[in-house]
């Protein structure tokens, strides 16, 4: 089988990278090499920025309605390739096919919302701010923006940003994950068919060198990032130093609190999806369960029994409920985290090492893993493991549950399972996390809402998706006028 080397997409053309550094892209379920991704040179990122800047002048003059029509065309083109895209995500990432379909759907939803930009970027005005003097506020695009994408939602995350950016009249550069670049490559094949003007949307594969080049380029006005907290903080700092806007969605360690009055059947099902969906590799995964009072005894047994029955295997098999993790490095990290939890005294209730894989087991597999007796001081309670490892912390009351949540430096998401409105209201009001679930295990905002995040989980002011995106990708120009 010929291993394809990916190309960049710059100024409306596919371009072979001049780099001599390449990474193999592997199928996590089989370890088969799917392709090679170039780690492009900084000057290739600069070329993309130049092309995007040159395209901006014409694109900015295209009417918002015309730009919205491109969104409608892009949506239809993606719907036609929906299943191909979903299967590609499974192959490059390892998630199960339904998760991949959900990811494609969420990505397309952002394009649908961005098609409403003609209304969303309308300004406002006032007559006679002083006698005979009127004042207008208009929203205008700024220029070139870029996105540094994560591996875990390789297709969807750039679509949290790019559709809004270009619908507002900006131009764009995507730097995909170098671990999972194939679905973005497929997206650009589709974008090429939709026939945007050259330079409006560009793709540069690579690693830190490409990111630094984009952050240093004078024509790049802003960056959107999703990934770890150390990298998010570094990108935020560098963007600010270079006078660029930034929105950096970063790490997480999310808690799911279970009150004694919670519906146990629904809670167990939600915990399984939240903790083990995408093999725990999502920033909205709840990897800590905080049981309040007597519910602990009633919850743990059915939770462990249900987790033990999860079918683990290749995500293309429709009967499978959890796929592999993305790489050997991820698997090694998860193994170390499990060892450390054991050393620190957590009680292992379900050992993912023992999982029976459906079909070919030659992938980066580890099964659902559950620890009880976890203390907030343990590494398991503090570190983002990004794998299917769930810790259970038992507390006496609601206040102690909030203390557990707030001892974390992160504030991405938190969930509460209860049937009492008063706990729900308290939780919603007081918890310092950006995405809150009430009887919802994965608090994933739909496209017309911002994707929240607080504390060390987000650096910036404006989030991705929805109205926040319009604000991030435009500037406000105030015009005061008088006619003699």
């Amino acid at each position, binding site marked *: 089988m010929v291993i394809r080397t990916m190309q960049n997409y710059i100024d409306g053309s596919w371009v072979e990278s001049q780099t001599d550094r390449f990474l193999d892209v592997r199928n996590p379920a089989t370890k088969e090499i799917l392709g090679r991704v170039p780690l492009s040179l900084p000057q290739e990122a600069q070329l993309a920025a130049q092309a995007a800047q040159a395209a901006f002048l014409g694109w900015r003059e295209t009417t918002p309605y015309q730009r919205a029509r491109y969104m409608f065309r892009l949506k239809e083109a993606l719907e036609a390739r929906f299943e191909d895209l979903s299967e590609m995500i499974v192959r490059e990432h390892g998630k199960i096919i339904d*998760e991949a379909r*959900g990811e494609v759907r969420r990505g397309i939803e952002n394009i649908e919302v961005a098609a409403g930009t003609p209304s969303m970027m309308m300004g406002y005005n006032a007559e006679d701010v002083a006698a005979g003097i009127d004042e207008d506020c208009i929203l205008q695009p700024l220029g070139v923006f870029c996105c540094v994408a994560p591996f875990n939602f390789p297709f969807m995350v750039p679509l949290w940003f790019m559709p809004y950016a270009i619908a507002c009249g900006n131009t764009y550069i995507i730097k995909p994950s170098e671990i999972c670049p194939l679905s973005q490559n497929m997206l650009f094949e589709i974008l090429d068919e939709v026939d945007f003007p050259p330079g409006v949307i560009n793709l540069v594969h690579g690693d830190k060198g490409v990111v630094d080049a984009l952050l240093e380029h004078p024509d790049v006005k802003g960056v959107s990032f999703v990934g770890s907290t150390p990298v998010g903080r570094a990108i935020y700092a560098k963007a600010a130093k270079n006078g660029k806007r930034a929105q950096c969605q970063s790490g997480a360690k999310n808690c799911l609190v279970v009150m004694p009055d919670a519906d146990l059947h629904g809670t167990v099902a939600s915990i399984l999806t939240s903790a083990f*969906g995408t093999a725990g590799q999502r920033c909205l995964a709840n990897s800590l369960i905080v049981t309040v009072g007597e519910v602990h005894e009633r919850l743990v047994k059915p939770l462990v029994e249900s987790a033990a029955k*999860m079918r683990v295997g290749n995500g293309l098999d*429709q*009967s499978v*409920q959890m796929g592999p993790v993305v790489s050997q490095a991820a698997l090694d990290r998860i193994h170390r985290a499990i060892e450390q939890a054991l050393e620190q005294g957590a009680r292992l209730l379900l050992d993912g090492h023992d999982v029976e894989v459906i079909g070919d087991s030659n992938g980066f597999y580890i099964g659902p893993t559950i620890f009880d007796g976890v203390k907030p001081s343990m590494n398991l309670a503090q570190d983002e493991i990004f794998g299917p490892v769930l810790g259970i912390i038992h507390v006496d009351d609601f206040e102690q549950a909030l203390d557990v949540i707030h001892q974390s430096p992160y504030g991405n998401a938190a969930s509460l399972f209860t049937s009492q409105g008063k706990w729900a209201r308290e939780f919603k009001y007081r918890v310092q996390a950006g995405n809150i679930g009430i009887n919802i295990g994965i608090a*994933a905002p739909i496209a017309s809402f911002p994707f929240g995040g607080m504390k060390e989980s987000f650096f910036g002011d404006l989030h991705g998706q929805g109205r926040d995106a319009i604000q991030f990708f435009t500037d406000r120009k105030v015009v005061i006028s008088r006619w003699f």
Partner: protein
Amino acid sequence: MELSTFGAIVGFAMELERAAESYYQGCAEAAHPEVFLALARESKKRCARLEMARREGISEMILEAITGLSSEGYQLDLPLQADPSELLRRACLLEETQERFYRAATEKLPIKEVQRTFLRLAAENERRLSELRELQS
């Protein structure tokens, strides 16, 4: 086979529709060509509706495991026969089986829009079955 995911349920439904389309196209060559060709065309459209439901109905917020539904009991043996009465008998069995499956699966699906699609398909199976029974008599 246990149908424990949303995709597995809709995928199995699509398999049933494809089997129906293929069977009805074969039946049309033996007897009642207008009736069976119309059923084949409808089955193809029904498969497309299921594909659209799978594509538009899925949300990764609702990917909870499904229990208690198996493809056992909905498997069909559809050999093509020369005897028109046997073809009709198996066609009736096919429509009954599909209707049973759609109603059972509706109880398990977590997404309301897809539940509605399944119930509409079940109602259509009921209509198709009564048309086939008229042909039998």
